[in-house]
């Protein structure tokens, strides 16, 4: 059993790399599956020292829900931001820094949250506090910073909490 863990340090990464290879090939054949598996076993094994911990996924199926919510938000936020860029004079716009206190502890989860915040237009994650307890977000137009903070915590952080912790 221990030997198996040594040979396959990240089973999920192995699966992910194999699927990624198959998608890159853009077609199904036994050849590409075998080569994908080969890469999926070799790469985690070689890069093992850089990934000492295996992130736990408590509810992996909730990732699908999360992706759907984020994609819909991206479309909606794009329209709002396009309107701000095109029609709102710079003088009326209120760019603002927002501090988001983090309940998440896992580095992978915090990275996912920061990435989500950047990809939804209108907000941009800029920095993390020195001990990792808060995230610094820049807002393109935030007349009410507290509302933005609450929405990010409620929509994204709560869902990531369910997935990772």
């Amino acid at each position, binding site marked *: 059993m221990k030997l198996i863990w040594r040979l396959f340090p990240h089973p999920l990464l192995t699966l992910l790399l194999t699927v*990624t290879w198959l*998608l*890159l090939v*853009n077609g199904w054949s036994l050849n590409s599956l075998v080569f994908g598996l080969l890469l999926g076993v070799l790469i985690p094994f070689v890069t093992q020292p850089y990934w000492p911990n295996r992130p736990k996924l408590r509810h992996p199926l909730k990732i699908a829900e999360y992706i759907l919510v984020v994609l819909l938000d*991206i*479309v909606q936020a*794009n329209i709002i*931001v*396009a309107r701000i*860029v*095109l029609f709102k004079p*710079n003088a009326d*716009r209120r*760019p603002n*820094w*927002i*501090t*988001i*206190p*983090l309940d998440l502890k896992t580095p992978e989860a915090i990275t996912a949250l*920061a*990435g989500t915040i*950047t*990809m939804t*237009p*209108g907000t*941009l*994650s*800029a*920095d*993390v*506090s*020195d*001990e*990792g*307890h*808060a995230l*610094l977000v*820049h807002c*393109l137009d935030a007349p009410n910073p507290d509302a933005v903070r609450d929405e990010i915590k409620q929509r994204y952080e709560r869902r990531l909490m369910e997935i990772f912790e």
Partner: protein
Amino acid sequence: MESLFEFLVAAFLVIAGVFGFVGSFGLLKLNDPMSRLHAPTKATTLGVGGVLLASMLHAAAFEKYFSVHELMITLFLFLTAPITANFIAKVHIHRQETRDTMPEAGGDDHWATHDTPEDEERRHPTLTPPTED
């Protein structure tokens, strides 16, 4: 049927073009560096996303094969775009802001970009070995 797909592909391309334009227009119009950083994120999400949807639809409807390369492009963009944006933001914080001009860092002392080795040592005295003279 054929013309319906043609219409859909054209619509996605127009949407992509509009958002690509808004992204580059924002880069010119917005007046402070941090706000300017918001414009490219729009171009990479709906701008590129629209082109990729159009491409997938075109492959499925007219060339009769299902293409997943577009999904991979989306995935890689979503992985890399936040990192470049974060680096540019960090450069801005490093060069234009000081600890006093930044907002409070939650319960912590300051933001990671303004962290120095001395702070690190103050926080974790045991981690840094004593220097020998």
